[in-house]
């Protein structure tokens, strides 16, 4: 249980940054968007979303401001900062590289060893 969460924390950050890069959203909206672009294959623990948002804001990758939601209610919107954009880029590259390496290992046939 714990192990899964750990992985998820690192990737959750990435997912949030990606979601926000497509346009400013409030917390609930980020949740929906992640579900949407993962085609409902990923489930996020709602309780861990907001601490992650606050952490990302504290680290400077996203910035927040209060605005009006669709049904005219006050909500806090998050958008990607310039540094956040660079961070998202770096993290995705790292992720892709890692995936390639692992895929390569997993595809090794007995003859290639």
């Amino acid at each position, binding site marked *: 249980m714990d192990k899964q969460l750990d992985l998820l924390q690192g990737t959750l950050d990435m997912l949030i940054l990606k979601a926000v890069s497509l346009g400013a959203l409030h917390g609930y909206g980020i949740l929906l968007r992640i579900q949407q672009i993962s085609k409902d294959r990923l489930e996020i623990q709602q*309780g861990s979303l907001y*601490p992650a948002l*606050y952490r990302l804001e504290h680290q400077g990758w996203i910035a927040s401001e209060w605005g009006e939601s669709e049904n005219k209610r006050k909500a*806090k919107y998050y958008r990607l900062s310039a540094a956040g954009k660079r961070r998202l880029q770096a993290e995705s590259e790292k992720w892709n590289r890692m995936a390639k390496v692992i895929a390569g290992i997993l595809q090794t046939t007995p003859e290639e060893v």
Partner: protein
Amino acid sequence: MESEMDAELRFHIEAFAEDLVRSGVPRAEALRLARIEFGGIERAKEECREARGVNFLETLFQDLRFGQRLLRKAPGFTTVAVLTLALGIGANAAIFSYIDAWFIKPLPYPQPDRLVSFETQDKKHGWTSGGVTSAADFFDFQKQNTSFEQTAAWGGASLNLTGDGPPELIDGGRVSWNFFDMLGAKPILGRTFTAEDDRSGAPHVAILSQGLWQGRYAGDPKIIGRNIAVGGEAYTVVGVMPGTFQFPLMGIANLWTPLALTEMQRADRGNVWLPAFGRLKPGVTLEQARAETATFFAHLEKEFPKTNTNLTWLVSSVTHKIRKEEGGPEVMICFVVVGLVLLIACANVANLMLARATSRTREFAVRGALGATRKRLAGQLLTESLLLFLVGGAASLLFASWGMHWIESQTPGHIRGYIVNYGHVELDFSMLMFTLGITLLCGLVFGFAPAFENSQLDVNHTLKETSGQTSGSKRGARLRRIFVAAEIALAVVVLISATLLVKSFIISVRSSPGYNPANVLVAQLALPKTKYTEDSQLRNFSDEVLSRIRALPGAASTGVASHVPFGGFGQGIEFQVVGKPLQPGERPGAPFTAVSADYFSTMQIGLVKGRFFDSSDAYGTSPSIIISQTMARQAFSGEDPIGKTLSLGEQHSVGTIVGIVNDIKMNYLRERPGWHIYVPLAQFPSRTFGFVVRSSGDPTIMAAAVRDAIWAVDRDQPISSVEPLENLIAVVNTGDRLVADLMVFFSFLAMFLGAIGIYGVMAHLVSQRIHEIGIRMALGASPVHVMSMVLGQGLKLALGGVAAGVLAALGATRLLATQLYQVTPTDPLTFIGVPLLFAIVALAACYLPAWRGMRVDPLVALRYE
């Protein structure tokens, strides 16, 4: 911030709920589901706050507000804790102000580390002259050196003041003309000396101290230019020095005159008597100066082999020399002891805090359940501790200033000149910093324990406990016991050290000084050179005064000596055993006193061998000599000194040893027995006199009569003092007495705090175990059994601490060895007595809680919550 977070999270939940409603879930159900899905809101909020990195200051203020409310709600606890801390920290701060003045603050002169002192040293035999050099060596160096900007010398002097009041003998100084300039001392009136003043035969000038000016001369605004009578001669006052001026190497001085040595005195290379110092040129190091003096003296050795063989100068920093002066070790000891007392006080407060914390475990469990992280709880507890310590620290300043005032009141005037930086012992910035520093340090260290304790709780377990006071984590109880045991150990160390010091002091006071000072009156004076030029005049004076005093009713016996013990004067003389050639560079010398025939019997000094002086030792006959016991033993290594001859001093007067007397104490009660040479006053006339009169009763009633006897012979003769010998001794002892008083105070404090510590822990333990006690008693245990159980527990604790303390003391007291007089650092009486005392005190402290435990009604106890 909080409301924003609230709003944001609420928005989220409502938005989710609305989606659920859109998918068909009824509204109320939707809201509930949304909340469940979200999870613990408070926890999420807490994590958000942490993730956000909450404003440290915000948390701090919140904790401080809460903390001070808590303190106000528990006035008993707060008062005891604050008082304990105030006493402990205050005592430390007071002693620190002296440490600061002595060792840390620079000396009150400009660039004090450029000042170095010169003293003659024998390279071959390793002895140093005790801070002096010869006049010729000094003046030659002064002329020829390149390392020093300026050099100056000084000498102490006792000066007779007459006119403008009763004749008075005061401490003064004769100084080089640039003495004050070198020390950067500016007069408040007039000027300092000039080179013209410092010439033999120049018109006499004097500089007064502020105290003398305001005292004897009533603050005369026209003091500059006024003539005063010093030593029978007229001196013109040219300046007044401020009261804050001090030079500890010279001691107290109230009047300065120029050194004004004659040509003959300046050329004297054989007598080593002149203290001197210098100010290094900018850029010159101590090493370079040392190299220069070494070469210079090598040169002198070759040029003047008779006086300077093997001699060179020891060049040391004045700061270093002053700090090593008497009093340094005593101050350090007080500092260490008072530090231990502080630790004891802090342990007590820590225990108090732990005890209070156990009654708050419920509060913390609830907070933990509500989402407080461990870090947060610990932080709050630490802040509360710090707050308590800071309040104690602030209160301590009051105690500190009382303590400093008391110490100051106990320090008599003539010692003050020797206390480094005396005028600067005050509540100043560095002392405030020190107080703040140790307050914070102790607060953090000792506040950490309860913080650590209480922040880790098994929430479930604690909340299920029925009593408001939980069984209090086992660890907490053990911690308290460790603290108390440690406290006791420290208190034992303090008490043992203090007892040793006080015992040493009492022994030194009670020990026989070699004579019987009871009922002896001493009148001291010095005959001025101008009036008494001939030796015969000196002899006549003492003979006449002595016969007058002898005739007084109430004078059981009388005598006179050139210097009396504890009189503040002393003189030494070089001697040579006739027939025993000296090794090159060897210059034996000993303290030297000229006495009347009846002096020994009046003082009740014992004769060991041979005879006292008598009428056969008159003026004109071959001189007789009496030596002290130690000198007989050491200078003559086994041979009988009686009959041997000594050649004394520069005149090489030869005298025969006719007697040996027991050793006496001349200057300090703690001094080791030394060499002493006595000669008859008739054959070695002296200018200084101490008339001693033994009366049958209180000697002070004779004071007026003795004065009159002296003035009957010479009406204008200033008498420096007429006092019982016991007073003279007591005054010199003041430093030791002060330390002994402080030690007694600290011991009481340590023991008192230790006892409170034991009581507190035992009372708490008993109240924790009331339930258990009730059960035991219901099952048939007798009250006595219960009491012995509790007492046993308490004693075990106390004895553990005492044992640890004794072990620690065995090691620690070795450091005191130099301060102890005739008391060994492992004095068995002390090492047995103190633990015994503690065992009794511990027993007494346990008694009340044990008695309470004994009176427990089992029925009540069983229902006790």
